[in-house]
């Protein structure tokens, strides 16, 4: 940073206006190749019939708001984290709890299952991401084997293992994302470019497996090259914080959910937003989005306690699911696409001293 005040002001102002004019040019360029809208192309596609999804499992055991969940590759186990610091691993098919750990912090906003199924990662207001190996040994305290991997300067909002148990990608309220080596805790790469808190990330299912997308409070969705740390593409069409991003199964696009009550689809080859999923009656933010296996359906959990199911191609809403009594905070489709799980802030008052919170699996 220049110490010469006047010079800096000049540079800052001119840089700022240069950025603005470049943004304008970029939008023009992007518009040039936009020859048709998605819903027009999708007119040929058969409309989806009525389909019914019901709650098949209710997982009760968290005493407070569920903030995040992730599926294990075995298609039935999940890890979930909550406001009171509890992280629980369930076999959601039988609804049995298999492991539980209490984090030393509250608001555990991020959790992830390792690809091998042998460990979980989580973090939140402690600004860290910690990895816990899962052990069934009754004599071992899970917390004892905990490994502190990531260190940020603000809350951890999202984390994900890459293709193995050895690396973790994190997103933080400090405006950066970072890639870490689990064994040593070494920072392998950091990603700077967001102008505010980063709230979500998703790894691309690509052949080279080298990119990921992140969304933040600066209303931007950014695609990063994991190797160089550079931002490869950026999209700024949302009107408010982006709470969730998820790749389309082919890897050629991604969807985002935002506090502006819309979900949007961005195509990476066309380099633009190609669809908006919104309805006038939906006024609360979308907190969490995920695709069905074929990418035809987009499930989105909202802060108005509902889950809306969108026809990705036609842009219309297929179904609305009422099943929670407070905002839906997290939603993930299972790895084999047979179900999705939603977690929320709700609790059911049983007696004065009991508060249960639910996670639900729908199919």
């Amino acid at each position, binding site marked *: 940073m220049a110490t010469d005040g006047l010079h800096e002001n000049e540079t800052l102002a001119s840089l700022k206006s240069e950025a603005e004019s470049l943004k304008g040019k970029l939008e023009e360029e992007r518009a040039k190749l936009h020859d048709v809208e998605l819903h027009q192309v999708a007119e040929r596609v058969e409309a989806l019939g009525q389909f019914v999804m019901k709650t098949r499992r209710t997982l009760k055991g968290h005493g407070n708001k569920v903030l995040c969940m992730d599926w294990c590759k075995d298609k039935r186990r999940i890890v979930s984290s909550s406001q009171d610091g509890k992280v629980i691993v369930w076999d959601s098919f039988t609804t049995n709890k298999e492991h539980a750990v209490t984090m030393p912090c509250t608001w555990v906003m991020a959790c992830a299952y390792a690809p091998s199924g042998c460990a979980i990662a989580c973090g939140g207001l402690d600004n860290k991401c910690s990895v816990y190996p899962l052990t069934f040994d009754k004599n071992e305290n899970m917390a004892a084997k905990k490994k502190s991997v990531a260190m940020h300067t603000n809350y951890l909002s999202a984390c994900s293992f890459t293709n193995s148990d050895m690396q973790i990608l994190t997103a933080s*309220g400090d405006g950066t994302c970072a890639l870490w080596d689990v064994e040593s805790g070494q920072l392998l790469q950091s990603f700077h470019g967001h102008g505010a808190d980063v709230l979500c990330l998703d790894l691309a299912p690509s052949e080279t497996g080298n990119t990921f997308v992140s969304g933040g409070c600066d209303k931007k969705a950014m695609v990063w090259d994991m190797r160089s740390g550079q931002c490869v593409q950026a999209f700024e069409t949302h009107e408010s914080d982006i709470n969730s991003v998820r790749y389309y199964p082919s890897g050629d696009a991604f969807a985002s959910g935002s506090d502006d009550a819309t979900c949007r689809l961005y195509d990476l080859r066309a380099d633009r937003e190609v669809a908006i999923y919104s309805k006038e009656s939906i006024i609360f933010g979308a907190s969490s989005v995920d695709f069905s296996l074929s990418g035809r*359906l987009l499930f989105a959990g909202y802060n108005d306690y509902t889950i809306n199911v969108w026809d990705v191609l036609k842009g219309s809403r297929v179904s609305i699911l009422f099943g929670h009594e407070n905002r839906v905070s997290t939603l993930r489709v299972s790895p084999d696409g047979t179900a999705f799980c939603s977690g929320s802030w709700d609790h059911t008052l049983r007696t004065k001293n009991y508060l249960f919170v639910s996670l639900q699996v729908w199919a």
Partner: protein
Amino acid sequence: MAAGPASHGGLRRAQRPHLSKMERMVVSMQDPDQGVKMRSQRLLITVIPHAVTGNDIMEWLIHKYCITEEEALHLGTLLVRHGYLYPLRDPCHLELRLDETPYRFQTPYFWMSTLWPAAELDYAIYLAKKNIRKRGGLFDHEKEHYDQLHRKISHTWDLVVMQAREQLWAAKQRRKGDRLVIACQEQTYWLVNRPPPGVPSVLEQGPERNSCTAGRVQMPTGPFQTKTVDFYRREVECLRKALGRARVKSSVCLEAYLKFSSQRGPHDPIMSGCLPSNPWVTDNDTYWAMNAPSAAVPTRLRVEQWAFSFRELLEDPVGRAHFMDFLSKEFSGEKPPPRLPARAPPPRFPPAWGGPDPVPGPPAENLSFWEACEELRHGGQAQVPALVDAVYQQFLAPGAARWVNIDSRTMERTLVGLGRPHRHVLDDAQLHIYMLMKKDSYPRFLKSDLYKDLLAEAVVPPKTKRRVFPFMRKPRHSSPSPALLPASASREPSGGDGEA
């Protein structure tokens, strides 16, 4: 009311666009022409104008937004819970009743976006008023708050009581109808801002956002925060690169979605169901057993999926194993001899297919090389040097036992990079080999007898018969946790001692 709009009201509002949307909604609901049917409501002997019933509200929402009754009820309930509508009868519960209960629109003064956060002093005055009006009429939680506040601001308690008395006296001067309405408005406001226990607070937002100052710095010249020079430089750089990016026409990209979705539709259990049945629906986990990663006989859908893309073939352990099998059976003699590298070709011991001409390794080595590179890329940092060395010795060095054929330019670049090994040093070589397999071996695999046989032998499970007595729940089988299984290759890189 003593307090005015809160000072951080502006900052928090930016985080809650749903409030301004709700406000626009209630404003249009009050439109004299297009709004909800309003009527005067008789409450005992008082007549309250501009009241609406729950049914009116629902009908209006259904008509205006083309939604179902269920959704309209839900939306209406949210409006009430956020204090934009209040019931004139039984105002203790903020819910949308579909009987003749009259509701009114909350005055903007009490809107969440106007008067937030609720001031402690105001709450104290409100509770004091309630206490004076109805001696001992406070609810338990209100009594608790009252005592707490009394302790906290005991030094100004006289002011609180005085204000309370003044407001009560002022209220008495009003007409009964107005008095009732104002009392309901105020009560609703406090139900929203100080909900009773057991009622979720609509104010909760989670941890504060935007508190980060990424790219921001306090300018020495003024109190305003602004982004750093570095931030803008980076943004400008990113934008310049983005401008030069090659783009594809929308029509091409969007067509691809149609193709992808129609191809994958039958494979999507939520869209098309799955055979024999969806475990979540029938409690029968046969589907998972049949599709286990190491299932002996793969299902038909699974084998079909290997033809969708090379990536998906490799991602499936069974698919990859069959592909490896196919590659091992292929003789490279069938392929036209590839371009020889610039330097002397490595001698092969023993020459598996005779002839004096040096030939590169069988295609199976390509896949093994690719797998080794994957291990390197996704392995632990500490294993990188050893793994790089192992891969080089096995696959790239002159005389390597499992030599892979990489074009000379890539090989040169790779060898230079090997001087300072890092996890991405083999990326170029890996990509080259990947593309080779994708363009050459993969299409041949799909046309091969091996693949055709796999398709023919693949299982198509029969659909589970509907249970006659659906209420008899099948016991749900538990499954061993992956954490219990012995360490497998997928978990740890095996490159610790240099072995691939």
